[in-house]
């Protein structure tokens, strides 16, 4: 009995000591996290919550906010420039997201083959991602220069009339899509990682069945990669609604000609930091959040039908 008790006491003491150690490590851990926690709460959560409040006020930074209820939201719905910005963003999204998926996926497939200098090729395709957008945009402005740019020079060689690109209200967005394809490196790397996770035995089994390369790509690689595609889709969706830097640099912040490159985030920025309508800009930010959430939920809703997580029967 005595031994048992002593063992029990020892165990209890051990637990207590462990608890103390755990508590101490918790404190130390929290202390290390503190700068981040303060940052998250102070620099993210507080502004986020405040912006919800500001979205119901008339606020120009210089004077205290004035409660106006849903006025900001209502005036946005009446504002044709706002709807133009929404339209531009949606059109751009419809072009850039699918093009980005196809292009990044195709590149990843190519870079997943066993060719010479693979590392070099991968680096080359990733390189644009480490360049600052402002510099890249300025270079592309020249690349797409309607009269002296290399793109139109090349089109001219083929006997095709080159469009005005960023100077043309109909060609500005396609130009931006091409620019965005240039920096798909980030997405491509994620696809590459996904590709390397596809089990070899599936390919072996397909080989035994006499499947062609195309067949293997569409019946093995593609289904196995749908979770990665899904992930990238959601990410690019969020990205596209906050699309800002390239068109801002290219159009000097104005989004012209004829507002054809005025995107949602640019109009938000203009309202906030050029016209100092902080309340209006805050309501735009919250609408943006709601729209993104809605579309993301929609994609999540359909994901059961096309995203395959392996394991056979779970697929609906």
């Amino acid at each position, binding site marked *: 009995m005595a031994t048992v008790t002593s063992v029990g006491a020892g165990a209890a003491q051990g637990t207590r000591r462990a608890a103390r150690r755990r508590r101490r490590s918790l404190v130390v851990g929290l202390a290390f996290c503190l700068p981040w926690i303060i940052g998250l709460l102070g620099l993210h959560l507080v502004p986020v919550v405040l912006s919800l409040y500001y979205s119901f006020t*008339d606020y*120009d930074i210089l004077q205290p906010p004035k409660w106006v209820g849903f006025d900001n939201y209502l005036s946005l719905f009446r504002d044709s420039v706002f709807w133009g910005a929404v339209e531009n963003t949606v059109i751009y999204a419809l072009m850039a997201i699918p093009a980005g998926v196809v292009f990044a996926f195709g590149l990843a497939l190519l870079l997943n083959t066993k060719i010479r200098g693979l590392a070099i090729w991968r680096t080359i395709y990733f390189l644009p991602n480490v360049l600052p957008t402002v510099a890249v945009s300025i270079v592309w*402005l020249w690349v797409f220069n309607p*009269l*002296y740019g290399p793109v139109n020079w090349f089109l001219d060689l083929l006997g095709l009339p080159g469009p*005005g690109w960023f100077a*043309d209200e109909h060609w500005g967005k396609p130009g931006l899509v091409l620019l965005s394809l240039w920096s798909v490196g980030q997405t491509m790397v994620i696809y590459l990682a996904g590709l390397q996770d596809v089990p070899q035995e599936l390919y072996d089994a397909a080989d035994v069945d006499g499947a062609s390369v195309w067949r293997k790509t569409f019946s093995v690689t593609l289904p196995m990669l749908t979770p990665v595609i899904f992930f990238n889709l959601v990410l690019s969706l969020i990205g596209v609604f906050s699309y800002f830097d390239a068109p801002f640099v290219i159009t*000097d912040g*104005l989004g012209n000609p004829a507002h054809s490159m005025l995107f949602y985030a640019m109009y938000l920025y203009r309202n906030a930091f*050029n016209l100092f309508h902080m309340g209006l800009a805050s309501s735009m930010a919250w609408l943006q959040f709601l729209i993104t959430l809605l579309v993301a939920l929609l994609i999540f809703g359909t994901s059961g039908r096309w995203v395959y997580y392996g394991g056979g029967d779970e697929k609906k």
Partner: protein
Amino acid sequence: MLHGNERGEHVLSRRALLASLGTAGAMALLAACGSSRPAITSGAPAVGAASSSAAAGQATPDAAATAKAAGYATAVPTPTVGQIKTTGAKGTIQYWHNHSGIELPPLQANIQEFSKSTDIGIEATYVPVPPGTQASEKLIAAIAGGTPPDAARFDRFIVGSFAFKGSLTDVTAKAAQDGISSKDYYNFAWQEASLNGKLYAIPTSTDVRILYWNKDHFKDAGLDTEKAPATIQELDDAVAKLTKKDGNRYARIGFIPWLGQGWLYTYGWLWGGSFYDDKTGQVTTSDPKIVDAANWYGGYGKKYAIGDVDAFQASFGSNAQDPFLVGLVSMEVSTNGTVNNIKQYKPDMNYGLAVLPMAPNQTQTSTWSGGWSNVVPNGVKNVDTAWSFIKYMGSSQGQLTWAKNSKGAFLPTSIEAGKDPFFPQANGAAWDLVQKLLPISHWRPVIPEGNELWNDLADAGDQIRHQKSDAKTILSGIDGKVNDLLKKDNWKGSGG
């Protein structure tokens, strides 16, 4: 014929490509040189009494030594471009400005002169105003946060907007105390610096919009080289003769209304329109005369195929060079400052300048002026010291010191400074024109939403020339929007 054309284009394009590549290479080379040997790129030589070394960001021992030898506040060069620092026994003022390049030597001269005479130090910091905006968001945030600089350079036409929001210090009493009154400045400058009869800024520079024409192009097109178009009709006819187009590519355009200083303000006033009624406190941009002007303006978009004009304009590169200087357009509405750009970058250019051509049914030409000022933001602790600096910068002496140390065109707002023989000497024929125009010059409405109105009108110009809707609808939209905002501001006009 067609073949020849096509081949011609190819050769040209290839050459252009090579030239561009060459330029890019040269720029890369220059950039490389610049980083390894910064002394080469340190810019302007010493101008006037002050050394430009601090302005260009180069710490040379000479500058400090010269300043010390001169026996006044020492300029301490710092590595940041636009940082100019003097010290004084009677305290130091933080001053935010947006000067760069050739404007730094005169700023340095002003600051040193001020510090020498008052023993007040200045710490001047470059805080840019981002493109497409009128006020630095950093400055606004600093004012809102209660930590503003003691003095700041401010675009004069938005002084009213920001004074209305309570972000600028009312200096009416100080001005009265120091004997400064509306008589010391051109009317438009004083009006822009005031709101409801109270003074919030001290004006510095100004400008006027005039017509420049390229005499060589005129000769080439068989026009009288010594006579600028006197009416809009004559202008339109000249443009038709001057413009050269090959397929959908322009080689030269006689005149692009929206280039340079071709704002809707410019033409609205030219057509005799009025943008604002101070009696009612309402903006009136859909004034039929302004609509007429906008229709003429938009007509160029239609007549000269806006897409092709846009492509032509885009090919200049963004803000890189003035197409008038390069000889791609034959006429341009620009400020008086372009005279100095031509002197500096294309001294052999054969050009003339004139008042803007007369609009239909008008008996007089018109122009408008803008310019800058200095303000004391709200929340500044030592208003007296800050006031003494902005007072000096706008004084006749301050403006003259600037002008004499400046390579750029400086047009004074101080009437006394304007009488100095320096200006006719420095500006030649341009000065006579400027003297004629300044007394009749318009200024943008001083209202709480002046900033908004400017942006909306700039947007409207783009919409109108791209035929997005008819001018009247677009301009009425602005009236609705801005008057709504003015109503929220409870604005009843400066009289009421």
